């Protein structure tokens, strides 16, 4: 395109304000938060106009192994279980609904509208409504009595039950074993059999991570005798949050899968049928492999949403119910109620790292594939 120099200059000048805003409000502020997380900054100091003291990584150390901060460790464990289950529910339900809607259904539009409408709602609305549906003495629990069945007894988001318990100090070893089984071994297999480069990168990252877990984290935690037998596990109360969030977000995966299914040409499926594929075979051999990239996108998008979930648990738990507490909530209360900016900033940075681990490779691969397509 023949573009004059003046026009090129105007173009850059027009986008410059946005770039500067993002540079300050995203990257500048992240840097500021990162710096705050290395201090003991709090409201008292600010009132007295005292400078905050640099405390190095103390805040982070306390989050993971401090004597009095067991709340953050509850949060991290909750986040992991919640994320895993929430993503599974959304993928399963979304895929099922999309496949059913793809069968040339009458009234497809109506069904689609119904499955997707919760996406238009606020997490606050969802939380307010489901809090009542999960009220142990009402809602879902009394629904069976409408047809003469006994009422449910599960106490949903205030349930005290916990399964899959483990001792916090064992976590590095448990994590190392899991990484070994589900990351290092598969990666090794791909490197040996297919000479995969990505597999090689994953293998190296996994080995470094495991070395740190076993040689750094495990002995460090073992030394903290006061942690004693501090136990964590999967709080069943989280099931209530998973169902509410799944109700809200399954339509999203359905829409993604449906868009993917519509992109698979009928000729391709027909060709497979002519070759003797059964209807299930068509899905197994053609449809599912072609939907795999969508599944990956959905895992990343849903995963990063659940890692930073805030509104829903704020409304359902109000910050007091540690059974469904999450880092985002903890950060909010630590910072704006407890006025401990240093600790709040440290929680925020951990959240940022968790999200970045998921999102950054996704963005890079997206833009790399876009560049090669051009």
């Amino acid at each position, binding site marked *: 395109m023949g573009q004059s120099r003046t026009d090129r200059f105007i*173009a850059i000048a027009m986008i410059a304000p946005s*770039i500067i805003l993002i540079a300050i*409000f995203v990257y500048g502020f992240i840097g500021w938060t990162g710096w705050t997380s290395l201090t003991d900054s709090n409201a008292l100091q600010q009132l007295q106009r005292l400078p905050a003291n640099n405390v190095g990584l103390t805040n982070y150390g306390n989050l993971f192994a401090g004597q009095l901060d067991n709340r953050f460790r509850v949060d991290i464990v909750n986040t992991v279980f919640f994320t895993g289950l929430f993503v599974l529910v959304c993928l399963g339900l979304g895929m099922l609904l999309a496949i059913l809607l793809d069968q040339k259904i009458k009234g497809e539009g109506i069904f689609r509208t*119904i499955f997707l409408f919760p996406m238009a709602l606020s997490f*606050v609305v969802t939380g307010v409504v489901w809090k009542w549906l999960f009220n142990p*003495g009402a809602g879902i629990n009394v629904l069976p009595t409408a047809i003469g069945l006994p009422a449910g007894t599960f106490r949903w988001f205030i349930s005290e039950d916990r399964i899959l318990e483990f001792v916090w100090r064992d976590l590095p070893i448990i994590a190392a074993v899991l990484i070994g089984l589900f990351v290092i071994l598969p990666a090794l297999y791909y490197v040996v059999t297919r000479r995969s480069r990505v597999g090689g990168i994953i293998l190296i990252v996994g080995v470094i991570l495991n070395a740190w877990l076993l040689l750094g984290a495990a002995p460090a935690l073992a030394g903290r005798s006061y942690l004693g037998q501090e136990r964590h596990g999967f709080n069943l109360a989280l099931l209530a949050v998973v169902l509410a969030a799944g109700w809200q977000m399954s339509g999203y995966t359905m829409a993604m899968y449906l868009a993917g299914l519509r992109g698979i040409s009928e000729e391709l499926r027909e060709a497979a049928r002519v070759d003797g594929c059964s209807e299930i075979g068509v899905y197994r051999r053609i449809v599912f492999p072609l939907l795999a990239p969508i599944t990956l996108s959905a895992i990343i998008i849903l995963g990063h949403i659940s890692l930073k979930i805030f509104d829903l648990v704020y409304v359902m738990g*109000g910050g007091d119910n540690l059974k469904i507490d999450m880092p985002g909530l903890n950060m909010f209360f630590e910072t704006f109620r407890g006025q401990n900016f240093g600790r709040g900033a440290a929680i925020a940075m951990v959240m940022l790292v968790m999200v970045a681990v998921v999102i950054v490779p996704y963005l890079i691969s997206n833009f790399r594939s876009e560049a090669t397509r051009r």
Partner: protein
Amino acid sequence: MTTRSVPLNTTQPRTSSIQWQRMLSTGAIYLTLILAALIFLLPVYMVLMTGFKSPDEVNISTMWALPRSLSLESFRQAFDELRTGLGNSFALVIPATAISAVLGSINGYVLSKWKFPGANIIFPLMLFGMFIPYQAILIPLVQFLRDIDLYNSLAGLILCHVVYGLPITTLIFRNYYTEVPDEMLEAGAIDGAGFFGLYWWIVLPISLPGFVVVIIWQFTQIWNEFLFGVTIAGQAAPTVTVALQNLSGSQIVQWNVQMAAAFLAAIPTLIVYILLGRYFIRGLLAGSVKG
């Protein structure tokens, strides 16, 4: 197409058994879909039934029963409680959506048609801004807004939503304009149009669908947002989500009023979704499928 598997000398019983199977599986599909739809609508049923009951009829044990008579009392009370929040949200969402749509359109135009050195690095760096947990910028943000005297005000909240809305609005417009053939702009350039001329005469007139997607997206996002609302303008100018949460957290407000309030808070985005769902879905997918 099932004809393929049917032998040429079809006998009557064979065909009918296949037809039976088809009817059975079609039936199962519809049954599953209807069941799923009912489950998805269950909360809506509960909210409306509770909302329409008169206050003395509201009882947890008969929560699922139909109301004996229709009463608007709960909705009236809920509206009184939410009035300020609804007003604040409209006063927030309209300017914030308009400004971020305009900025997104210009950014998208520059990024898709005026390639400049470094754009391929700057754009992903911009996009990262829409994925971050906002907790990671919240402490400096509050401090900064205090310093420029916008803390605890709608203006401050508008600023936040405009800035943190830049990545998604830019992304949607950039992808939209990438589809516009460069030849169209080249023709305009030959006629002597510059940066603004090309935008005004060629790009803007075909931008309507892009604007609809972005406006719907930003409207829904900002209306539904809670974290910025509660931290930045929570006391002085509570948005509708903050007002609703305050209502639900209070011990004195009856739950039928809470349900009615939840419904009222959801109406604006629901209307947009029902009327313009197609564009809503496009915005939804834009955030995940790029290029």
